[in-house]
């Protein structure tokens, strides 16, 4: 099953997060621990790492604010899962 990529809570005081950039292109294969996206909250920029390895499908546009927990993409375990995500036009 594809792993959800979501906006993580990173401290006690946290408002919505601004998604600044994806740090890998759509369809890139990543390993767990690779930098995945850049977000900003409470005036701090943070690189968020991939929680699992696989193929990245982006599900949310950059430049917008998202609440904690919002799913913004997926990491597919293999090609067929990735293709299914793309075909379904899945977006968050």
């Amino acid at each position, binding site marked *: 099953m594809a792993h959800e990529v979501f906006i993580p809570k990173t*401290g006690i005081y946290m408002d919505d997060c601004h998604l600044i950039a994806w740090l890998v292109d759509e369809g890139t294969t990543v390993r767990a621990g690779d930098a995945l996206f850049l977000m900003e909250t409470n005036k701090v920029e943070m690189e968020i790492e991939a929680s699992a390895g696989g193929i990245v499908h982006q599900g949310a546009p950059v430049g917008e604010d998202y*609440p904690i927990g919002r799913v913004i993409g997926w990491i597919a375990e293999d090609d067929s899962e990735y293709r299914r995500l793309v075909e379904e036009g899945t977006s968050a």
Partner: protein
Amino acid sequence: MTIPDRTLLEMFETMMTIRLFEERVTLEYQRGDMPGFVHTYIGAEAVATGVCAHLSDRDLIASTHRGHGHSLAKGCSIAGMLAELYGRETGLCKGRGGSMHIADFEIGMLGANAIVGGSIGLATGGAFAHQVKGTPNVSVSFFGDGGAGQGILYESMNLASIWKLPVIYVCENNGWAESTPASYSQSVEDLSRRADGFGIPGHVVDGADVFAVYEVAAEAIDRARRGDGPSFIEAKIPRISAHYVGDTQKYRNEDDLADARKRDPLERFRSELAAAGLLTGTAVEGTRAAIVDELDRGVAAAKADPWPTADGVTDYVYSGAYGG
């Protein structure tokens, strides 16, 4: 020292429980449903496990801000801890404490502690209580290298040495206090050397090696039970987890983190048990599945459990003895 096979397998299960608990809590915390701050015990599992394997419910421990591992190793229930982390009325402290204040007096767990070094006076006092009551029990204080900077440690060690209190000071030295390296803030590399100044035996042990921790803890705990007084154990542990969940560790270089990961105590113990023919891959997966199942049920139950209510805000603040 030969450790019985059954004890080894129990310790493996405890270490795996701590690891999976912490991984699950990290994920659930990031999802946003858990209040407060969370510090995980990943990388330190062998210390709480190797020490608490020698303790009964009547022995006491006092813990730190990074207390989930100590709690689990001492026998706190997974469900009760999860409910506490979610702040629910069903939690071990009725949802009033959260991650840094988990306690369970029934089994001798005096509490996690948000005050760095806060365990030291509590455990020393607990050891004094054992001595006054004449029971053959011990008391263990867990604290970090940062905690070793608190003055109370040195006052406590002096008293404990004079009075021969049955207390064991266990310093979990992961080389960091938040973003401050121990090499910058501590006068000596081996903090256990300081015990010598109080006439207390000090030991350094590889805290990623559960066999070594178990062995040195046996010696210190036997000494305390015999009435011969305190010991100091410094366990050098890899800091695999960040300071708190959400800490991006920009102050740390990548080699330091990579080196820490290479010292993974759980993976080391797993391969040692496998090499000794005590553990198969199937057995590991079976243990993992059982723990994950318990975590699934615990998380689901905790999320559905009731919150404390506003009219209960003063409950449990005073003991009944004072008419509270």
